[in-house]
């Protein structure tokens, strides 16, 4: 059986140089967005999902673990931040920290439960855990059921950055995204990342080499969950609401789709995938009822014709790692 992540090429100095070039281009392009005319709210939303997909990709693309419940980190961080900002009246930076800590705590607990399961059973146990969480959030009064937490104040980051100004908010989100992205990139290329990849390739061999693979996997899970939470906390400032849809299993499915469309196990794939999916939701809306049909068609085409994802196919074409 072919592994889902056989598209990654070995990391060589040349590959790293390529990736750094692409990263600089990406950062530069994103930095000039407010002057290009692209709608910044759309880009901000896409950036939050891009970070989320990158965090998810860290787990599957480099750890070989397919989580089908990553929405729980997004939603938990969203609820925690939203509550901290609206009810406790905390400042934005503290609100983000509360959200990230919430997601981190959750990932420690769920990671501990799920990490020893293999393959599809790992996916299922993460799905089940996220469904349990969905139920808890539905029942707990502070989330306000399907109405969600609405009208969250954006406030001033560090006391002087006015987040209600779209341009300021945009750069804050962009910096957050780039920081998260670099952290993931750094992790992948660290000794820790190498061990992770070796576990993905052959767990038995890694064990026989003396690695405590469960600990590595757990650490990757916590890192992935926490970063997904960071994306969720940023999203609170963009959307100004936190709702049940962020915890629903279909959101977890969407994360998988984004990563897959962009290219599993590629560095930039999840970013591209997130932009594609979010753009589809925004710009296909005019097709009315045909949207779901078009979306379905795209997924079918994606699986049948470009399985490596957009970035994966390009990388394959140029025989480069991206």
């Amino acid at each position, binding site marked *: 059986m072919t592994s889902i992540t056989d598209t990654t090429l070995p990391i060589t100095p040349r590959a790293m140089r390529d990736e750094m070039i692409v990263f600089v281009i990406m950062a530069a392009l994103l930095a000039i967005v407010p002057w290009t005319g692209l709608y910044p709210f759309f880009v901000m939303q896409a950036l939050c999902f891009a970070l989320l997909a990158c965090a998810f990709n860290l787990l599957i693309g480099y750890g070989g673990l397919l989580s089908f419940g990553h929405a729980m980190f997004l939603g938990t961080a969203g609820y925690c931040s939203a509550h901290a900002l609206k009810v406790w009246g905390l400042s934005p930076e503290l609100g983000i920290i509360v959200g990230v800590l919430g997601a981190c705590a959750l990932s420690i607990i769920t990671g501990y439960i799920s990490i020893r399961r293999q393959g599809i*059973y790992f996916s299922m*146990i993460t799905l*089940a855990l996220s*469904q349990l969480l969905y139920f808890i959030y539905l029942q707990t009064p502070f989330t306000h059921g399907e109405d969600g937490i609405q009208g969250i104040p954006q406030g001033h980051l560090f006391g002087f950055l006015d987040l209600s100004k779209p341009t300021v908010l945009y750069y804050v989100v962009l910096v957050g995204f780039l920081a998260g992205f670099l952290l993931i990139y750094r992790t992948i290329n660290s000794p820790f990342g190498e061990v992770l990849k070796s576990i993905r390739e052959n767990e038995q061999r890694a064990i026989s080499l003396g690695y405590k693979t469960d600990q590595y996997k757990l650490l990757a899970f916590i890192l992935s969950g926490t970063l997904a939470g960071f994306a969720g906390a940023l999203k609170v400032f963009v959307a100004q609401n936190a709702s049940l849809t962020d915890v629903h299993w279909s959101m977890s499915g969407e994360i998988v789709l984004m990563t897959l469309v962009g290219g599993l196990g590629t560095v930039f794939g999840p970013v591209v995938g997130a932009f594609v999916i979010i753009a589809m939701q925004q710009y296909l809306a005019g097709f009315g009822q045909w949207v*779901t*049909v078009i979306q379905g068609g795209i997924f079918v085409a994606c699986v049948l014709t470009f399985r490596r994802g957009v970035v994966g196919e390009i990388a394959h074409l140029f025989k480069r790692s991206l």
Partner: protein
Amino acid sequence: MQALYAQLLVGLINGSFYALLSLGLAVIFGMLNIINFAHGALYMMGAFCAYFLLNIAGLGYWWALLLAPIAVGIFGMILERTLLQWLTGLDHLYGLLLTFGIALIVQGVFQNYFGSSGLPYAIPEQLRGGMNLGFMFLPVYRGWVVIFSLVICLATWFLIERTRLGAYLRAATENPTLVRAFGINVPRMITLTYGLGVGLAALAGVLSAPINQVRPLMGADLIIVVFAVVVIGGMGSIMGSIITGFALGVIEGLTKYFYPEASNTVVFVLMVLVLLVKPTGLTGRAA
């Protein structure tokens, strides 16, 4: 106490839908190694087929019970030939994604033509009314659903686990090259198996048409629960999914009595517990 009996019986009725649906899913997974996320959409097609047969061709429930699974089964086989067969040897994720895409297309098309609120389908003449069991009023139709689906489940189990054809099938999934060497057309067998699994989904759809609304999204939420049933039972295990299906129905019934809010969630609690104790489901083989 009486109320409890009633809840148990009602649970068993629901369990028979879970059993039929998860059985089809398990057959497909066991033989094709595909997680068929289109199962809910095909279940819905079965119900719509019954509706069309009645309103266009004038054929009633009994004909629908026979013809709808065949029609949807053929549709499934076409899907397998044109789309799914290209996935052989790839990771589960691709099968899941492809079938999910198919489900979106099918549901979208039906919704475009029939709206979202659904169409009526009456209980057949012969199965109307009900009987008083002392502790509850049991509609005849519900009783029929339990018995009929139990028979179908056991027949399917028998076909796959106890007949020569079933033996070929199982062998073909273990080692296709070897089976092909015996002169058996393996791809055709796989296509037929997919048709069988899909037909079971359509059958469940026909059975549920008189109870539930015939709606384009009727299978969309069900699929995730049925999928959980298959996982709890052990992926690919026929008997495992039948037993788990009925058992889940009963457990859900009890939950509806003691803690109704959680009745849609209990299956996931069960899944976590089972997977913690038995990593590959109740009767499953290693993933």
